[in-house]
């Protein structure tokens, strides 16, 4: 009997082959190569030394951290307001809202870059309007800078974060609100003392998804800037696809740094979220 069931393990083989060939082994190779000099063998830390000492890569790491953090925070705030609105209002509007969010959640990559080019590029519509009416803030908007592109990041964070947060609001019960009102609390106090703490685990996990999402964003940025911007994913891709020969060690080290940042972010948000869950139980 035992023998017989082991034959069925064969059905796992195709899955394992694909996973090994295109997921596990490639990842391990990248990590391994980050500890080797290109062409050579043996252990070395020179790639990491380059990553942390060269100005370009330092800037790439800092920029990536900054834009991921800022866009995730802004995304969460807008998502919170949007999801709360959807929670407080029940009606036809909610269906439309959900439909728009779902639709736009797939609006990313090259098309998104294109739409923003038309809107805010050098000859973009909003920029022209700004020029025509003398609104300097719009007329001088430069999409092709870190700050300029932050609008794009925020754009693609909104549908994702709102869709992730809306289900969490189901956990905020009407009775709590009534209890809070009875005790003399206002709306503001309710959300500050009850609503947000209850939602905090969902908010934190959404935050880490948004952070990872922004950190890995590549297509939109590449479409606008090509390789000329200090951001981690762009620099990583540049190491492997540039005109010069492949720098697998350096690219590998940058990839490892990016993965480590993601893992740290997940650990931090998980840790914080556990704190909130514990706190809730104690009270």
């Amino acid at each position, binding site marked *: 009997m035992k023998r017989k069931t082991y034959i*069925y393990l064969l059905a796992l083989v195709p899955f394992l082959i694909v996973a090994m060939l295109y997921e596990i082994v490639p990842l391990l190779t990248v990590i391994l190569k980050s500890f080797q000099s290109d062409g050579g063998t043996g252990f070395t830390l020179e790639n990491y030394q380059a990553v942390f000492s060269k100005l370009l890569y330092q800037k790439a790491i800092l920029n990536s951290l900054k834009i991921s953090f800022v866009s995730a925070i802004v995304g969460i705030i807008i998502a919170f307001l949007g999801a709360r609105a959807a929670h407080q209002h029940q009606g036809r509007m909610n269906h439309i809202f959900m439909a728009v969010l779902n639709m736009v959640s797939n609006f990313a990559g090259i098309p998104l870059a294109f739409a923003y080019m038309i809107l805010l590029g050098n000859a973009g519509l909003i920029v022209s309007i700004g020029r025509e009416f003398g609104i300097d803030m719009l007329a001088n908007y430069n999409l092709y800078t870190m700050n300029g592109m932050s609008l794009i990041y925020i754009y693609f964070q909104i549908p994702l974060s709102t869709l992730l947060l809306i289900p969490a609001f189901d956990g905020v019960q009407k009775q709590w609100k009534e209890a809070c009102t009875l005790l003399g609390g206002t709306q503001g106090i309710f959300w500050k003392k009850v609503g947000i703490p209850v939602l905090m685990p969902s908010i934190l996990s959404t935050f880490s998804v948004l952070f990872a999402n922004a950190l890995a964003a590549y297509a939109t940025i590449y479409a606008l800037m090509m390789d000329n911007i200090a951001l981690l994913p762009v620099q990583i891709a540049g190491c492997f696809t540039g005109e010069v020969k492949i720098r697998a060690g350096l690219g590998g080290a940058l990839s490892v740094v990016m993965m480590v940042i993601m893992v740290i972010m997940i650990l931090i948000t998980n840790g914080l979220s556990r704190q909130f869950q514990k706190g809730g139980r104690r009270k």
Partner: protein
Amino acid sequence: MKKKSAGSIAVMLLVMIYLLIPLVISIIYSLFKKWTGILPEGFSIGNYASLFSDPNFLASVGRSVGMCIVPILLTIVIVLLALFVTTIYFPKLEKYVQIICMIPYTIQGVILSVSILSLYVGNKSVLSNRMVMLMGAYCIVILPYIYQGIRNGMRAVNMVTLIEAAEMLGASKIYAFFRVVVPNIISAIIVSSLLAVGIIFGDYVLIRNLAGTSAPNMQIFLYQTMKSDSTKASAVFVIIMFVTFVITAVVLFLKSREGKNRVQKK
């Protein structure tokens, strides 16, 4: 109470306006010859007409469709097989299958493409073929979605009991799986395949890094046209977004129908 509701509507409207502006403007843009000032000039559908007579564009559409087929079919088959043996015979292994299936969530895009590239680029075997690399990468990218779709489907139909029932009626486990379970979860499989189509359709990173510009799909075609002719590019944009929305709408429709069926059954 009324006032609060008005505030909520205003918030939702604002968010929707912000989200829809880039889309609406691009659609209007595609319908005019020129838009350099504030108002567009010269309504025409010439952009679309020239696009559909451009063999390069048609080829890119064909490639976008073609590139979906192999990875999606392959991934469905391997995940079905893997989940079949793990749930029936080796429940302990299910955890590991799940981990393997979930890793791509975090390493998608740039890291996955450069990992595959750096492993196979100097290789002499068939593995170094750019198209093979790309197909493999697509399998991994869609793995989490296909896995979750199929697993949720299996849970929803209560696969273990279903197979036991079929066995009692004299069927073998394999027969029960392929003739009873799979037909019952076919809608879950379709939904996750459509999600996968959406992902592969929207892919630019993997195809650029792995296949270069040798076999442009619609995304690369859009990228190339937007550098040269932005009104024509806007027509490509509209077509891409239209396809994406249709896929999303069908997914949502199938999901909501599924939800309703389940409620009715209860």
